[in-house]
């Protein structure tokens, strides 16, 4: 059960990378930028990473006030969504995610964060839709795989079963999936 409780936090932490890099720096080659462009957003992300959601939300909100450019704002709202979700302020989290997706409807991390909020709200069709959108944008994202598993566990729970077959003639069915 501990794992189940920690899972949302792990998912959220996986969704914070953007604010860690200064805006416009991703993919940049020879820019000499010392320190993040928006210190509040970066510090907010760092606080969220350590699990300090209150501080993370406070700093992210402050960072959003001075955010320059769409990229920073998208990352900021997405992180705000993550932080608010950690605080179980789900309606506010949803608004932040929606805001991020209004600015950039191809931001897979925002779909991922919003899917988690929907899962917490037990709004499974919406969660599934966002997971699928995220998967289409980033098929290899581990966060989305975990969300997919959470979704499946919510709508169609399974329990593992191991059959130890010592009978003569027992063979592995190699086509089992």
């Amino acid at each position, binding site marked *: 059960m501990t794992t189940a409780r920690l899972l949302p936090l792990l998912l959220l932490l996986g969704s914070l990378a953007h604010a860690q890099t200064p805006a416009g720096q991703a993919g940049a080659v020879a820019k000499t930028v010392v320190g993040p462009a928006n210190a509040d957003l970066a510090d907010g992300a760092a606080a969220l990473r350590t699990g300090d959601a209150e501080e993370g939300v406070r700093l992210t909100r402050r960072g959003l006030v001075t955010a320059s450019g769409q990229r920073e704002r998208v990352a900021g709202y997405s992180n705000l969504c993550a932080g608010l979700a950690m605080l179980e302020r789900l309606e506010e989290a949803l608004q932040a995610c929606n805001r991020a997706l209004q600015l950039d409807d191809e931001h897979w991390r925002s779909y991922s964060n919003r899917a988690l909020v929907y899962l917490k709200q037990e709004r499974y069709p919406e969660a599934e839709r966002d997971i699928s959108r995220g998967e289409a944008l980033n098929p290899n994202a581990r966060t989305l795989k975990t969300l997919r598993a959470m979704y499946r566990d919510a709508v169609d*729970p399974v329990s*593992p079963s*191991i059959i130890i*077959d*010592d*009978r003569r003639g*027992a063979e*592995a069915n190699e086509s089992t999936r």
Partner: protein
Amino acid sequence: MNRPARRWLPVALLLFAMSATAAESRVTHLEDDNHERVPLNTVAPAYPAAARRDRIEGDVQVCFNVNREGRPYRIAVRSSSNRVFEKPAIRAIRASRYQPLPKDREVPAIKTCRTFRFRLESATAD
């Protein structure tokens, strides 16, 4: 009685609580009574987390020798449906034990084989 039915008739179906590695799995042990070596401590493999997450089921057959003391050795996967299950299966065999043989009995050279079937059962109440 037809042959397959006769072959499966002496099957003993045992349900038992297993080791910590398989704490979250339901374990079923199927065995017949005509094996050279008698299981003493059967360890069930852990269901790999990634396979559970991705809803993958599969089978692995592992064959091995058992020494006089009942320890498996020369453990090798004979067939498997997915590699993700192979390591847990080998670990389970390595941790399992068979009844030791008395000194006056020869250790059989024939390999023992065990098939692990990893399954995911619906947990939804009917």
